[in-house]
């Protein structure tokens, strides 16, 4: 029986790898999801069939498994039906759940072994348990704060929340947790050990939220990717604790995925991990940006419509503002109107546009815009000088030319979409305030730039109206 279960785990491991492999291409991606589902089903059933779980055919014991699974069905389905604009929050929340599960399993395993089999708490075992609970609990609270910020919950400030000496306080909390953990590793059975264990849990829980509170909305893609990685690594640690190679493999796949995504996000912002986590982006600049007032050139949707009609190539740069305004379906109408006139329309997607990796792609896909027209930053930039009209739609920092030349700008060196090289630029903006990073954007003051103020959905709607044949002009 044990061998059969191990073989089932081996099968599931292979399927998980294939699942991610198929995920690489939009054509086979759904097959990847189905492979993942099958693998998970096999893993759950195999575990359930373990002698120590189903040895006695005693209903009460099965109830311990069936009831939590039953309770999870409704929230699981509900969370899978959230609007696409809420996907970043859902993802953060699921990292929180993953971290919580890892932390709880580590806690349960420690207290169980402490009373039932203290000899099994070897230094190696304790290292794995301590890593599991620290990663698990800090991911839990950190992700809850991330989800709350993304959901724009009232009691969480959107802007970075900072105070002097914050990094020192955070690092001390983490340092104390690690020292306590190290003490535990070598004295797992001491009288004080259970208290120290609870101390580590307490510190990890606090470190998690303190780590994310000072991080602003624009850095959320990186934070989500890092938390994704932590959730995976806590599953790996659980695998070491439970001596389960399926857990190690699946956790490592998740951990490396989070790692790669965070590297991509950091590169796309020209920043390091340390800078994202401890930099409290956007604080310093707010004062600097105050000074002189430059003039915007506003434009009406009708005027913009006339210019668009003359264009032969249009590039739309979507940003978080598009998601906030839920404007993706209106954008689709604009796309249709322009296409109908034989105008080439493409979307330039910056890797950190939106609030999580790939956020814009999913939103536009929801509006049934074919993915062939969603172009990555590196590809579109060489075409920008040939672009007649560039519509910046709720994006800000990712089109800020200061990143190219202004060495004092906090985003200096960040790769951007060269909207300023297009012949004409329309910038759709909710208000005259600077973006999330709190930085003034020179793009808006160029001679060729015209501002369309208002909610992205409303403005795009009026553009569509101005372009549609029925409009009396």
């Amino acid at each position, binding site marked *: 029986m044990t061998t059969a279960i191990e073989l089932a785990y081996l099968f599931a491991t292979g399927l998980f790898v294939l699942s991610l492999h198929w995920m690489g291409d939009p054509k086979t991606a759904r097959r990847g999801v189905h492979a993942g589902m099958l693998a998970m089903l096999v893993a759950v059933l195999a575990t359930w069939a373990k002698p120590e779980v189903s040895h006695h055919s005693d209903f009460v014991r099965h109830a311990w498994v069936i009831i939590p699974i039953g309770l999870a069905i409704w929230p699981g389905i509900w969370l*899978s039906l959230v609007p696409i604009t809420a996907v970043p929050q859902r993802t953060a929340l699921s990292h929180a759940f993953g971290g919580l599960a890892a932390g709880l399993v580590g806690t349960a395993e420690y207290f169980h072994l402490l009373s039932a089999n203290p000899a099994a708490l070897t230094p190696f075992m304790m290292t794995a348990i301590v890593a599991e609970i620290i990663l698990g609990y800090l991911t839990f609270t950190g992700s809850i704060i991330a989800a709350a910020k993304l959901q724009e919950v009232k009691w969480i400030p959107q802007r970075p929340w900072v105070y002097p000496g914050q990094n020192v306080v955070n690092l001390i909390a983490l340092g104390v947790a690690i020292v306590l953990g190290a003490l535990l590793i070598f004295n797992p059975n001491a009288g004080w050990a259970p208290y120290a264990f609870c101390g580590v849990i307490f510190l990890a829980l606090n470190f998690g939220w303190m780590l994310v509170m000072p991080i602003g909305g624009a850095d959320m893609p990186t934070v989500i990717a890092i938390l994704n990685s932590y959730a995976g690594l806590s*599953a790996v640690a659980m695998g070491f604790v439970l001596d389960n190679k399926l857990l190690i493999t699946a956790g490592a796949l998740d951990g490396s995925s989070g790692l790669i995504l965070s590297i991509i996000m950091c590169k796309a912002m020209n920043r390091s991990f340390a800078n994202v986590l401890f930099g409290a982006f956007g604080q310093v600049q707010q004062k600097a940006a105050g000074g002189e007032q430059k003039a915007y050139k506003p434009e009406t949707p009708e005027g913009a419509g006339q210019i668009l009609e003359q264009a032969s190539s249009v590039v739309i740069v979507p940003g978080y503002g598009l998601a906030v305004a839920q404007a993706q379906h209106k954008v689709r109408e604009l796309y249709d109107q322009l296409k109908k006139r034989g105008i080439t329309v493409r979307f330039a997607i910056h890797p950190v546009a939106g609030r999580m990796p790939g956020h814009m792609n999913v939103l536009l896909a929801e509006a049934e815009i074919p993915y062939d027209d969603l172009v990555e930053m590196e590809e579109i930039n060489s075409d920008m000088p040939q672009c007649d009209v560039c519509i910046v739609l709720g994006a800000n920092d990712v089109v800020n030319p200061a990143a190219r030349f202004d060495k004092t700008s906090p985003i200096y060196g960040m790769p951007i979409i060269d909207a300023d090289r297009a012949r004409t630029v329309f910038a759709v903006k909710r208000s005259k305030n600077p973006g999330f990073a709190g930085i003034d954007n020179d793009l808006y003051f160029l001679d060729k730039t015209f501002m369309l103020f208002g909610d992205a959905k409303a403005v795009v709607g009026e553009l569509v109206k101005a372009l549609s044949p029925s409009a009396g002009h």
Partner: protein
Amino acid sequence: MNTLFHTLLLLPGAAPDVSNPVIPDAATAAAASHGGHGSELDLIAMLFVFMLATFIGIGVIRRVSRLLHTPLMSLTNAISAIAVVGAITIAGGQDYPTPIKVLGGIALFASMTNIISGFLITDRMLKMFKSQAPAGGKS
């Protein structure tokens, strides 16, 4: 649990009392086998698995198009909810006291929620990604 690896790979380690008569070793081996895990050979095997899986993960994920990064994240989310394995072992295990089983039950609820919502939402998002079909079909 790991008889497979013991019989296939770690044969010498499977019988440490016979092949290696040093007493402290035998004592630790006995302690380890009592708990079902923790021997050094196991540790090395697990580190191998961890390292190789990380390399495979990096190799596979690097090839995922940026287009699909959001569904990729929700899929890996669902996959890392494999923590469900640990949760079931604890919630349904026979020799755990009730307070500990409660922790396992909560963990099981949390990871099961991730599994269900993770896979379903990934599939839902992927269904939306369409290639250049008859363009502008709506208008």
